[in-house]
């Protein structure tokens, strides 16, 4: 590949910590890779594993989940639920043959704009190294049945 592979990454973040941290990165005019698309949710506790699957199905090469630090959740412990759910879901992903490395889990507070920028850069780099995620696409192509919502 002569041209650099530009992965598409979907981030599910909570509005109180990570979304605010992303805004802070913006107001601080930090520069980071343009590969991530953010989906804002009230809390990481709202994130269903189905969202992650949906993103991968839609063609995302990687998924990022990020919320408040343990103990700092605006909703007291939504992020712990998210973490527990992720631990279980991770095993399932692995079982289905999808590398769990495509899904990253992180904590970023509203004060950590630079950490957010760094994380986006490192996640983008990691996913780029993993290459495109085309398992679904190939399957769809082979069976010639377009995926519907």
């Amino acid at each position, binding site marked *: 590949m002569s041209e650099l592979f*530009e992965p*598409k990454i*979907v981030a599910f973040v909570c*509005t*109180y910590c990570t*979304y*605010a941290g*992303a*805004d802070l*990165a*913006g*107001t601080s*005019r*930090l*520069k*980071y890779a*343009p590969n991530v*698309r*953010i*989906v*804002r*949710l*009230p*809390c990481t*506790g*709202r*994130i*269903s594993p*189905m*969202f992650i699957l*949906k*993103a991968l199905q*839609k063609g*995302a090469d990687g998924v990022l989940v990020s919320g408040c630090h343990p*103990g*700092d*959740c*605006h*909703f*007291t*412990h*939504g992020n712990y*639920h*998210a973490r527990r*759910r992720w631990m279980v879901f991770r095993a399932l992903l692995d079982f289905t043959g999808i590398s769990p490395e495509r899904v990253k889990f992180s904590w970023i*507070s*509203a*004060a950590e704009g630079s950490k957010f*920028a760094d994380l986006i850069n490192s996640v983008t780099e990691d996913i780029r190294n993993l290459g495109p995620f085309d398992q679904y696409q190939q399957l769809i192509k082979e069976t010639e049945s377009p995926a519907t*919502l």
Partner: protein
Amino acid sequence: MAKIGVFICHCGENIAAKVDCTKLAAAMGEHPGVAVSVEYKYFCSDPGQESVKKAIREHNLTGIVIAACSPRMHEATFRKACAEAGLNPYLCEIANIREQCSWVHTDSEMATEKAMDITRSMVEKVKRNNNLQPIEVPVTRRALVIGGGIAGLQAALDIANAGQEVVLVEREPSLGGHMAQLSETFPTLDCSQCIMTPRMVETAQHPKIRLLTYAEVESVDGYIGNFKVRIRMKSRYVDMSRCTGCGDCITKCPAKKISSEFDCGLGKRTAIYTPFAQSVPNMPVIDKASCIYFKNGKCKMCEKSCQLNAINFEMQDEFIDLEIGAIVVATGFQIQNTAVYGEYGYGKFPDVITGLQFERLASASGPTAGRILRPSDGKEPENVVFIQCAGSRDPSKGVRYCSKICCMYTAKHAMLYAHKVHGGKTHIFYMDIRAAGKGYDEFTRRAIEEDEASYVRGRVSKVWQENGKLMVRGVDTLLGKPVTVVADMVVLATAMVPQHNAKEFAKTIGIAYDEYGFYNEAHLKLRPVESSTAGVFLAGACQSPKDIPDSVAQASATASKVLALFSKEKLEREPVIAINNEATCAGCWGCVLACPYNAIEKKDIRDRSGRLIKQVAYVNPGLCQGCGTCVSFCRSNSLDLAGFTEKQIFAEVMGL
């Protein structure tokens, strides 16, 4: 059929310089369901909002997407515009193409592509938005003020004087905080206690203020207007209903050599004590750790001396549960542990003291009755060296910020010293003199010109002892050479840092804090007294280093916020709450386990004859905060979160 309006804001050059807005508008115009897609320089401006409203009416829009700055910035603005145009405000979504796109990317093409994805996904989401109505919740008109320093007192008095109930909680046995420890205050040199103690008395006697001293906030539950707060009343071992504050017990107490916290270790106190003579309430507490009876099981001198039988060694901590509508956090600061500066010899040389200790020496009610005497031998120092920024603005010691008050109080110390010790000599090592404030620069000029404070611009590298004198080695950067000053006493202007338990306490109340532990305001400029949690406000040095005028001003500002909240009987809340489909709910109660707020109740479903058919989950809209944890937990997909429904989020993902 959806008729969505897409409004792309240039934000001047902020967005337009990186994102090709014309291309974005054209692409969105082609998107299915989009009835109108336009760009404009500033949609948040009056004409911008008018054009949005006009478009809603003209095209009969069923939803709008504003591609502009963060929803944290202007979501409320555009929701209001929607409502004014007759569209349900919750049919408005914001595509954040400024903070999360144009400001953070360098490649224009990729930024435009990303902006398209973001906007498209919001269009897909808004197509599935529903009309929502704000939820009304009652407001308990009782404020909790945490901290009895000057900020807490000011907030409590302002709220109470407006006729609302206040509960004031102070951790120490007396009100007063740090301000009560100060000698005289800049820039007027009026005596701190003279202006502070009347406030303390006024607070204690105010019919609308319930004062709880020697008490701590144990837990905070609930939400704006409806907090449930548990207060721990620490056992004083003195029955406050009987004690008159005569002080007999204090004079009789044999444990007399306990280092006084109020005097910063320069004075002594007894085991049963009031922190200082003007304490409010003027009732002692027994310091269990130092009390001879608690240590050895024998003594009880205080009990014997008390004619009112107010001493009770059996006393236990008690808990008080309160219903609270708003909380003012005024927990203050502490001074940095100066031990981090080994080179300055604090703790090693008794005559190296902190600024706060100097305050106690200079205070008429202090351990030396206001005479400046060296702690080592009680002699008047002839040469005093002040070291500014002994902790502040020093990344290597973990404090990058300016503590704001040290330049001023060091100038004040130099003046007080000159007034009290005639012929005494002062040297002040400084980095910059920061004297911004009404009357402040004039004040530091006075210290230099009238009271002959000698300012040396440079840092001190080492303090050591030689022939009974303190040697201060520093650099004079204006002369460009090292200097050594011989001193009898060295005063360190230590940094203001958050309280030792600031972070844990923030978690107890549920507010955010910065990397140091200072509490975060909702917006540094526009919402400086509100915390990140609705209904919790910040006053004084718990938010950032502050002097007295700033703390008082901020405290009054919190009072106005609290009073505005209390001016309504009911409060409107965001309708982002979980809703249950009772037809499909199987009553597995997974959601009950998941809910952080105990907002989910069991509801009986009965037939016409009153026979119980099944039990289902019911979400109490007053308690639900809308985190959505239960929704992801729900096995039968019965629960959904208004504003962030499964359909909306799936659509958003598919739009990317």
